[in-house]
């Protein structure tokens, strides 16, 4: 029996706790979180504003979760340092918590680039945590003019969340298209048009030149009046705790397949880490909830004395805007199969006899079959690729494979 300390209290932490408890019912678990909240789902903050969830329902796990898993939680406590030799962590309050094994799941923080006059904007928010959303919500009025800087996932989900509660929304992004990290140009155009129908105004290939209290002047010369400013240009992994003690870090903390860092008995998971993206053969920060959970779970099982590897991470995103859905995964490289039909849009990317990525907008049914092809690195010559191109279906697999998948437990 040992003592496991987890820094952070989101998906990776929950994955870790559930991973530990799947193999180890005895060890002590301590969760240290700088937030004051029972574990909740970060991506749900936009749905909270939208009204499709509430404080209670957005809890990622039930109220009894910590008790059920025999876990001590220290909420509102910030870890300031790790001593890997003494095997303890020091809190801002001066408390020292020892550990036998440590998980760093510190996530990431909004990145606020230097912008001229930003300090003049009185109602300026980021959109990452529950407290951010609650603060933003307080300021929303039906007449509010909102300027969102950043047309990425966070920015647009924020747009969706507040769209019906404000007067107008403008979105500025330096990129030439919305959702530049997940969509290609054509797909982005399709989605953009759809969002524009809801009255949202986009300023792309553009950025703020100067911000004053209620107005932003853009580099293009355009002027945008606003009451509320939301900055959502990106996030930075929180890696300082480990970087300070010499752990191997790139853009984020490096971990192996077992989610171990370069320092003994210290694991890391979630948005603060880099993962190996098998679709692109490269290390990336895959800041997405499923990845965080699975990394956390992998770390947890290993910390609890079990054996688990996580070796098939890929970028993937499922997102809806005003009921218009898109699912993307992998990397957009190699040969391309495209299919468009009105509001439905599909691109498959394949190379070296493997599917490596896809973008589907509109009819997303059964997209997971494509995801699985990427993650399993299924050789395309073993399946009926022509058949599966048009529609994700198990019919494209061999009868033996189907028998295995459908007539056996797994």
């Amino acid at each position: 029996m040992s003592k496991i300390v987890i820094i952070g209290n989101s998906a990776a932490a929950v994955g870790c706790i559930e991973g530990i408890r799947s193999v180890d019912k005895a060890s002590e678990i301590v969760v240290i979180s700088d937030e004051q909240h029972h574990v909740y789902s970060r991506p749900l903050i936009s749905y909270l504003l939208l009204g499709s969830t509430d404080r209670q329902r957005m809890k990622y796990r039930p109220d009894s979760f910590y008790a059920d898993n025999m876990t001590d939680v220290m909420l509102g406590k910030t870890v300031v340092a790790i001593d890997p030799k003494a095997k303890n962590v020091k809190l801002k309050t001066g408390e020292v918590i020892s550990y036998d094994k440590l998980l760093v799941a510190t996530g990431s923080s909004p990145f606020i680039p230097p912008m001229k006059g930003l300090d003049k904007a009185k109602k300026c928010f980021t959109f990452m945590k529950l407290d951010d959303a609650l603060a933003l919500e307080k300021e929303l009025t039906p007449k509010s003019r909102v300027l969102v800087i950043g047309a990425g996932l966070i920015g647009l989900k924020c747009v969706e969340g507040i769209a019906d509660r404000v007067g107008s929304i403008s979105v500025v992004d330096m990129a030439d298209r919305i959702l530049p990290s997940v969509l290609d140009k054509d797909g982005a155009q399709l989605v953009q048009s759809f969002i524009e129908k809801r009255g949202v105004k986009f300023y792309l290939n553009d950025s703020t030149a100067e911000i004053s209290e209620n107005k932003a002047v853009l580099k293009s010369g355009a002027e945008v009046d606003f009451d509320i400013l939301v900055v959502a240009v990106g996030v930075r992994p929180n890696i300082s705790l480990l970087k300070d003690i010499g752990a191997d870090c790139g853009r984020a903390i490096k971990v192996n397949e077992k989610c171990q860092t370069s320092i003994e008995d210290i694991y890391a998971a979630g948005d603060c880490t880099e993962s190996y993206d098998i679709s692109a053969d490269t290390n990336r920060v895959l800041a997405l909830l499923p990845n965080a959970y699975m990394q956390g779970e992998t770390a947890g099982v290993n910390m609890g004395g079990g054996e688990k590897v996580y070796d098939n991470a890929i970028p993937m995103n499922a997102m809806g805007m005003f009921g218009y859905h898109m699912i993307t995964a992998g990397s957009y490289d190699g040969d391309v199969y495209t299919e468009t039909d009105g509001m439905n849009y599909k691109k498959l990317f394949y190379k070296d006899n493997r599917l490596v990525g896809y973008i589907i907008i509109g009819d997303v049914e059964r997209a997971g079959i494509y995801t699985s092809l990427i993650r399993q690195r299924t050789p395309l010559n073993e399946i009926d690729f022509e058949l599966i191109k048009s529609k994700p279906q198990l019919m494209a697999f061999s009868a033996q494979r189907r028998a295995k998948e459908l007539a056996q437990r797994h």
Partner: protein
Amino acid sequence: MKRIYVNEKWCLGCHLCEYYCAFANSGKDDMAKALKGVKINPRIRVEEGEKINFAVSCRHCEEPLCVKSCITGALTIKDGLISFNKDKCVGCYTCIMSCPYGCIMPDGSGHAVQKCELCTKNACGEPACVKGCPNQAIVFEER
């Protein structure tokens, strides 16, 4: 745990499983009342090929990617059964992205998903697709 297994050798492609599924989850007590004039949205789907047909529904995986990926905690696994809490679902479709079998689908509302829960939450008792399959191509058993 008892699971649903399909054997395509015996699937006739009659689609009755889909109708029995849709009826079982309609909450109505009469099939004609439930399904007449309705485009059904069943949780089990028959794939049709040239000489092959088979039905697919949630496999209730032991390592369920949908549960691990669910951003809300609406999908949970207990005693092998993967259940879905509609109340928590926000319709993000991360599960649709994750399920390797394509067995989670949008529900009728478009704001949430639906999946086979082995008829544990309706009045059917045993999975309706299994009961309704005329050729035992779908079975519910311990393997």
